């Protein structure tokens, strides 16, 4: 650990949080349909979208209609992407002549992108055509992100309302978020990435003749345009197999910094925008602080872990730190650690180093951050609503302790909210632990697990954690490209997205109809340091309690085993 390393971690997190403020303020305007400086260009396009799809932009939707729209859009996206992948061999822009994907792989990949997971069972440079990358993956990177943010917007309106009914219009939210937020930041960011070395070309792969006389085929493609939205939209699906570790996706420390800030800034901005729309700026600030504290703590823990001696280096009598297996020289331990914390704290899943090769604490921490439901700051939109679930549970338990029916942002938290919060949490837990417990005893499943012993358990647990959390990062030793894994992981991703988003929408539906209560001196304060501490405590204790036994059998025991092994050499 070095001072420079700590400075880089601090700067990265600081930039992500700092830039979220102006972006959040802007996003709030977009959510509320207010005018922006992009109107002259985008208004006409927006109108074309509504006109062609027959959407009345002024018509609000109740929570059920909103949810149905969200589901219908996701379904349409799934089918279109599935078809695109299955038949990419018959479609244009396929210079390498890749075959169509198998049904289970296409199923897994389509769900993966529609649910904002972007788990890659395929290897980008050897299985996906340029058309699949552009018209398939890039589009979903926008669409799934915008859909997630739309739900956050609906939730914000629900909290703002006083005995209301409408939570907004999904189609309008989807269109506006895409056109006014995601597209502009992607154009600017994508061009910056291209300038810094990220390829953006439709050229076929190039054969190079290396200095030592070997042939090296260089995979290329329209990388920059997809790379940037992959980060901003917390999608994380790489153009290449190695994802953000690949020098074409992430060639320099600066692109790395851009990537890290991009994958967290909209997550934080959603909270800021929520605060503005729901009339709860101080409360939103408290949530941002809670997220930031936990994120910084996690990044520090990973940084510490990755600078500890590892058995292989100790055994080989070389310099024993940092743990460079699976890491790039240009990033080193600090930039890899903070990247890992931010990608798993969000639902991004991009990786600039291989989590499988991390130390047990480093990899276990990454897994734990996903298990906390990815709320630090979480996926775009999804992080906010995941945090809301946590905040509601915290408010409920603690709120009683001030002697009133708990209320949050002026809305009473009652049985309906608790039911839905627990349902959402339970779905995540059941999917992660349930699938992992079944897969790990099935020989069929365990055939493709590369590691043996304790690390094998971590691999399996990480896989379902990542799928359910819609993260998409992996302990990549596990080869998930077979029918069992493709299917179960597909279901896990589906559960993680819709099994969470639909209860959240139902919460929004309940909240919107409630009267907005005026705060009094007897109301639980939800903006101060005390509340920040409370939320952090609830997140850690609830998350810890659910996953501690499983983690104990995986990363925790592995950590102690590693200490023994290191000491033995």
């Amino acid at each position: 650990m070095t001072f420079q390393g700590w400075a880089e971690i601090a700067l990265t997190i600081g930039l992500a949080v700092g830039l979220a403020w102006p972006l959040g303020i802007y996003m709030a305007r977009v959510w509320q349909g207010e005018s922006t400086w992009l109107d002259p260009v985008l208004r006409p396009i927006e109108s074309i979208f509504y006109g062609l799809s027959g959407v009345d932009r002024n018509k609000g939707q109740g929570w059920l209609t909103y949810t149905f729209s969200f589901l219908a859009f996701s379904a349409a996206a799934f089918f279109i992407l599935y078809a695109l992948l299955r038949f990419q061999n018959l479609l244009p822009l396929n210079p390498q002549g890749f075959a169509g994907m198998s049904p289970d792989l296409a199923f897994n990949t389509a769900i993966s992108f529609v649910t904002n997971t972007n788990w890659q069972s395929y290897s980008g440079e050897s299985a996906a055509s340029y058309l699949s990358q552009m018209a398939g993956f890039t589009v979903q990177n926008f669409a799934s992100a915008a859909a997630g943010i739309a739900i956050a917007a609906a939730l914000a309106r629900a909290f703002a309302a006083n005995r209301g009914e409408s939570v907004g219009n999904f189609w309008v939210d989807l269109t506006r978020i895409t056109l006014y937020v995601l597209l502009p930041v992607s154009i600017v960011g994508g061009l910056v990435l291209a300038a810094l070395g990220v390829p953006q070309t439709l050229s076929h792969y190039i054969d190079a003749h290396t200095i030592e006389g070997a042939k090296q085929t260089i995979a290329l493609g329209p990388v920059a345009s997809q790379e940037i939205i992959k980060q901003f939209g917390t999608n994380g699906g790489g153009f290449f197999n190695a994802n953000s570790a690949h020098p074409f996706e992430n060639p320099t420390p600066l692109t790395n910094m851009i990537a890290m800030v991009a994958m967290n800034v909209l997550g934080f901005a959603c909270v800021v925008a929520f605060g503005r729309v729901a009339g709860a700026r101080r409360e939103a600030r408290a949530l941002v602080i809670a997220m930031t504290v936990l994120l910084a703590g996690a990044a520090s823990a990973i940084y510490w872990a990755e600078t500890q001696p590892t058995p292989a280096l100790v055994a080989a009598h070389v310099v024993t730190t940092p743990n460079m297996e699976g890491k790039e020289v240009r990033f080193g331990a600090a930039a890899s650690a903070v990247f890992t914390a931010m990608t798993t704290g969000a639902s991004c899943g991009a990786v600039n180093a291989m989590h499988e090769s991390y130390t047990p604490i480093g990899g276990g921490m990454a897994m734990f951050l996903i298990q906390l439901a990815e709320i630090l700051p979480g996926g775009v939109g999804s992080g906010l609503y995941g945090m809301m679930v946590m905040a509601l549970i915290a408010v409920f338990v603690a709120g009683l302790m001030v002697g009133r029916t708990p209320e949050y942002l002026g809305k009473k938290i009652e049985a309906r909210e608790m039911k839905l919060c627990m349902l959402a949490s339970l779905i995540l837990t059941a999917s992660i632990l349930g699938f992992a417990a079944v897969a790990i005893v099935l020989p069929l499943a365990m055939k493709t697990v590369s590691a043996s012993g304790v690390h094998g358990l971590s691999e399996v647990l990480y896989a379902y954690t990542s799928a359910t959390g819609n993260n998409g990062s992996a302990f990549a030793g596990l080869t998930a490209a077979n029918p069992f894994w493709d299917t179960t992981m597909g279901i896990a991703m589906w559960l993680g997205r819709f099994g969470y988003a639909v209860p959240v929408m139902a919460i929004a539906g309940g909240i919107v109809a409630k009267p907005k209560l005026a705060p009094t001196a007897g109301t639980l304060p939800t903006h101060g340091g005390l509340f920040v501490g409370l939320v952090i405590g609830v997140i850690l204790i609830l998350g810890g309690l659910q996953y501690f036994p499983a983690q104990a059998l995986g990363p925790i025991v592995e950590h102690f085993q590693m200490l023994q092994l290191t000491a033995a050499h």
Partner: protein
Amino acid sequence: MPSAISASGSQGAILRRAFIDALVKLDPRKLTGNPVILATEVVAVLATISVVDAFVRHASPLFAIQIALWLWATVLFANLAESVAEGRGKAAADSLRAARVTTNAKLINEANGQVTMTPSHKLGKGDLLLVEAGDVIPADGDIVEGVASVNESAITGESAPVIRESGGDRSAVTGGTTVVSDWIKVRVTAGAGDSFLDRMIAMVEGANRRKTPNEIALAVLLAGLTLVFLVAVVTLLGLGKYSGVALDPMVLGALFVCLIPTTIGGLLSAVGIAGMDRLLKVNVLATSGRAVEAAGDVDTLLLDKTGTITFGNRMATEVIAAPGVAEDRALRAALMASLADETPEGRSILELAREKHGLSLETPDGATAVAFSATTRMSGLDVAGTSWRKGAVDAVYKAAGLEPKDVPAEVAAAVDRIARSGGTPLAVSENGKLMGVIHLKDVVKPGVKERFADLRRMGLRTVMITGDNPVTAATIASEAGVDDFLAEATPEDKLRLIREEQAKGRLVAMCGDGSNDAPALAQADVGVAMQTGTQAAREAGNMVDLDSDPTKLIEIVEVGKQMLITRGALTTFSIANDVAKYFAIIPAMFVVALPSLAAINIMHLSNPHSAILSAVIFNALVIIALIPLALRGVRYQAIGAARLLSRNLMIYGLGGVIAPFIGIKIIDVLIHAINLA
């Protein structure tokens, strides 16, 4: 305060009955409302089966037997908590039931006026009864004719008889109370089985105890946590199998029970019942737990000025001498003018003279009292040629022959000052000469201001309701420290105010007694009717104060808050406990197959069996240990939400994390010492 409903039943008898009830409640059908304890019982059954299994296999059953026993104990302790809470109510109900004896009612045939004797349980709504001195009133009703003094001690515990009369706000009588003198005719308002007494018995017995909204929400949270932990524990079967850990189902069951929130699960209903019980202790009867809970949420208290904020009677606070009149002469004149005055105002002048000036006089022999009359608007005393008068200022001026312009400026100024401060000036004369002015004012009860400040810190707004003019009302309001007031209030104004407050998202509490209060009582979220009030008022409110003390509203709010705080505190404690239990059980479960995990046995528990057993025992004992807290309630302080939260988080959150580490370690040392594991 004597009370029929809280004073009965010895502690021992209650406990004995509670033990029996706790055993009866082991019936799983009775546990369906409590998923946490039901789940515990299921595990206890499975543990018992595996004990039998161990015997069959000739394995050593000592560990299994102990686990099974402690799991059963956990369920039993939870049941006991509820039974003890209910026990107090049951004892109270028994004494109430004693009042509900079948009597013979004198039913009046309205066609011919004849009286027939009819058993009280055959009475119906609308029947007309005659009740005479010595009779027990056979049913609830309104007096339509007559005045009587009634002993209501069967219900209120207060043995001094009260006056009940037809018309007005004192017309309601309650079945089971006794007419002490005179006679009344009563129109029955509630048939047998539906009377006030019946409802009271049902309430204190908990027969109608439906779960309150917060209780339901909390139960949902607890059930959700139970399911989450079920998943966490059951999936260990698969994960453990991969790791080569041989998982004893008994141990998994123990882990599950330790993780699910048994503490709050076991105490939840006891907390609710105890909350109602605490209300009963202060002689308030709530028609539902929901109302008690709503009391904790109240944002605005509507308080009647008279009786709640002020003593209700104007009292003399000073005597201002007219120019040229000595101070003590003026006072003496005021005193003499009031000697024969039996009104509270008059008494207060004597009081003032005695307390402030040490002046006390007997009525001289041969004195003639001059009563107040509408024409003179003065009263006083004539003794041996000297006459003292006090009365309305202009009446005394007139009697003294003073034109308004001739009134001494000092006197006019004093009169003006008194009037503007909301007080009432009375002038005093001696032999027709103006001696001075008495200042009568509405005196705010001592301590009221501090109480309102407390309420404000808890976020409650107080609104004073009064029939006074705005000037007077404003004075009293600022003196009492209420946040707002409603002057010259009519019942319609009250109702409108409540609706306005509710529209702003506030919950409103009020108390009232008159029939014209009924709509407002019904509209308020918490409406406390006075037991002395009309039947309509008692029906409309969701609480009845048997002492008919309007200040009770404040205590009701506190009880409501205390109930919610207790639930939250126990939930926090329960969940926080899990941290330590993990550190006890997880290493114990896995350490044989994965020796490295010994590193997380940070409590250094003696051995795996002892560790698991200690956690289970702690888990069971903590319920017993917390029963008194659940019944008594967490101490409530009016220190504002933020400080209250941080205090409770410290005690129950942080304490909840730390306490089990200590407790489990101690139990482990004991178990090890006596070789149980």
